[in-house]
């Protein structure tokens, strides 16, 4: 026999501040380490980058105190640390490439971070209740699929290294798939919260699974076709896996039925196999994955091999920041930032980074458990699962668990669109967690107000 009682809610804003200062401190130490190891002096950019990060994160912290005081206190420090460490690594690669502090990628990344935080702050400021988003379920669907297909528009889309996932507007280039991830999560949450009863209740039992009715298979088939379309036309396995996986996971969260996962896996592996048979670029990826060090694979690309050698060079404790050669790998600052870290801070350090991602995802899932409305639950679960899946796709790709694809590591990788999308995602999670942790309004007060109102009528 047990009793269940509510605990008084904690805001945890001071805990957040302490952790935030610790996070910035770690970043400054890492920056100092890079400067001392590469130039032997106190790094000149330390003040600019360190103060920049501190100001950005403290401003966001103050906004949280003001607008979402019950929001989860752990999300912001974790994200700040990841973003800051990404900055340090990009700065370190700037030094290796001989770029100056002022026109290096790190400065651009810091500018993007500031912009991303500003947009996240705007999301948090203007979106007072995440349930408002539910009104835009089908708008989100249209926008999401539109963003996904935008790179296919002739003249706008750009093919970069085989994948057509970029759009170019003048000097700027942008990966719309990153934003589409969030928008589609909103759509899936709004759609599934309406239809989950039908999807979870109707159906026959086959081999212990409750199979859905044929007509209920419609949505999953649409999602499957869309994700295969991305795979075939944009040649991007990563985004394709991300969107389909997101949909299947949210379907599972909404209906609690394992049969959806089985169906999803069968559909995806079938589709991927057919794509493998039909398309050369998929075969190439698989060759690189299975036979990385074979002469045929090395003739195509030695990027993955270089990344693996880098991580092997790092070993358990790493070569130390500034002492390895991560710059030997192409895209060491974006797709291959995990091997860069693996080389310089070692298995120990990389596992600390993975723990940070794990904790970030855990906080998202905890938010999903805590929030009281179905839409919020699905949205928080979907958003945090999308981060989880993206980390899996990236880390799995560079460590040869799955074929390598061109996704970015959230917060760590160089790239404006990725930063914008992921900071906004965290802003949404913070907003939902604020609702989840905020105590319910006092019922007695409402009752007292009602009683008074009746009394006023009686007075006459």
């Amino acid at each position, binding site marked *: 026999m047990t009793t269940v009682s509510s605990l008084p809610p904690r805001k945890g804003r001071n805990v957040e501040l302490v*952790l935030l200062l610790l996070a910035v401190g770690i970043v400054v130490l890492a920056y100092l380490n890079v400067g001392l190891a590469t130039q032997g002096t106190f790094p000149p950019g330390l003040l600019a980058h360190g103060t920049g990060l501190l100001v950005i994160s403290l401003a966001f912290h103050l906004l949280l105190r003001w607008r979402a005081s019950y929001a989860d206190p752990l999300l912001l*420090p974790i994200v700040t640390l990841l973003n800051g460490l990404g900055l340090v690594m990009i700065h370190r690669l700037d030094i290796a490439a001989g770029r100056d502090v002022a026109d290096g990628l790190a400065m651009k990344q810091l500018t993007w971070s500031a912009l991303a935080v500003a947009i996240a702050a705007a999301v948090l400021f203007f979106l007072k209740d995440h349930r408002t988003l539910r009104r835009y379920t089908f708008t989100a669907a249209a926008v999401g699929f539109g963003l996904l297909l935008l790179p296919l528009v002739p003249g706008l889309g750009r093919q970069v290294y085989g994948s057509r996932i970029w759009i170019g507007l003048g000097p700027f280039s942008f990966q719309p798939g990153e934003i589409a991830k969030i928008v589609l999560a909103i759509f899936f949450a709004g759609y599934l919260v309406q239809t989950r009863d039908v999807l979870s209740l109707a159906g026959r039992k086959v081999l212990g699974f409750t199979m859905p009715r044929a007509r209920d298979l419609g949505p999953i088939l649409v999602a499957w076709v869309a994700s295969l379309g991305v795979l075939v036309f944009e040649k991007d396995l990563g985004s394709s896996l991300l969107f389909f996986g997101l949909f299947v996971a949210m379907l599972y969260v909404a209906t609690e039925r394992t049969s959806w996962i089985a169906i999803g896996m069968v559909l995806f592996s079938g589709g991927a196999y057919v794509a493998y048979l039909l398309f050369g670029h998929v075969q190439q990826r698989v060759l690189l994955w299975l036979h990385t060090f074979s002469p045929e694979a090395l003739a195509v690309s030695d990027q993955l091999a270089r990344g693996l050698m880098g991580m092997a060079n790092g070993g358990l404790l790493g070569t130390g920041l500034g002492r390895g050669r991560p710059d030997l790998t192409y895209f060491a600052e974006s797709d291959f930032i995990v091997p860069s870290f693996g080389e310089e801070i070692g298995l120990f350090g990389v596992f600390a980074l993975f723990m940070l991602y794990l904790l970030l995802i855990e906080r998202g899932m905890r938010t999903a458990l805590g929030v009281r409305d179905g839409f919020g639950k699905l949205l928080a679960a979907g958003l945090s699962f999308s981060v989880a899946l993206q980390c899996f796709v990236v880390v799995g790709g560079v460590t040869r668990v799955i074929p390598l694809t061109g996704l970015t590591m959230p917060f760590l990788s160089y790239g404006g669109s990725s930063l914008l999308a992921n900071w906004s995602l965290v802003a949404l999670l913070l907003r939902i967690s604020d609702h989840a942790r905020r105590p319910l309004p006092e019922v007695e007060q409402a009752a007292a107000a009602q009683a008074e109102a009746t009394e006023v009528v009686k007075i006459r």
Partner: protein
Amino acid sequence: MSELTLTIIRLGLLVLLWVFVFSVVGVLRGDLYGTRVVSRLPGRRSGDRAARAKKPKPAPAKKPSRGRRVPQSLTVTEGPLAGTSLRLRESGTLIGRNPECALVLDDDFASGRHARIYEREGQWFVEDLGSTNGTFLGSQRLTAPVPVEVGTVLRVGKTVVELRN
């Protein structure tokens, strides 16, 4: 810059990273917001979920025991909630079907606010709150507040409650 300083900074960075991870985990542990589940008597059948969820937190004991005969808690010995035990409060412990009661009964023979156990000048009393089917002390139906002590057995509908210290 000497190699030693660099090594210290490098390893210090790794240590700090893990310190951060563990401090986050430490906050997590203290941050299990929402509900607290308090286990009472193990090994008995659990009672009705609604009653369990709505039951308010038992007040912590403020005063030490003032004697062996002074009851401090009540335990359900028979009925669907058998095994439940909760602390008596000086302000009064309500028993009934109403969710606001301290002991919420799921019993067709109990009234919404069935009985109350309360303290007056160091003595505990049980009082029937005008229930339909009555509160029984042994075979005697209560009509007025009756003093109780440790070991007193009360019957409310199908539920039997015993006072303990």
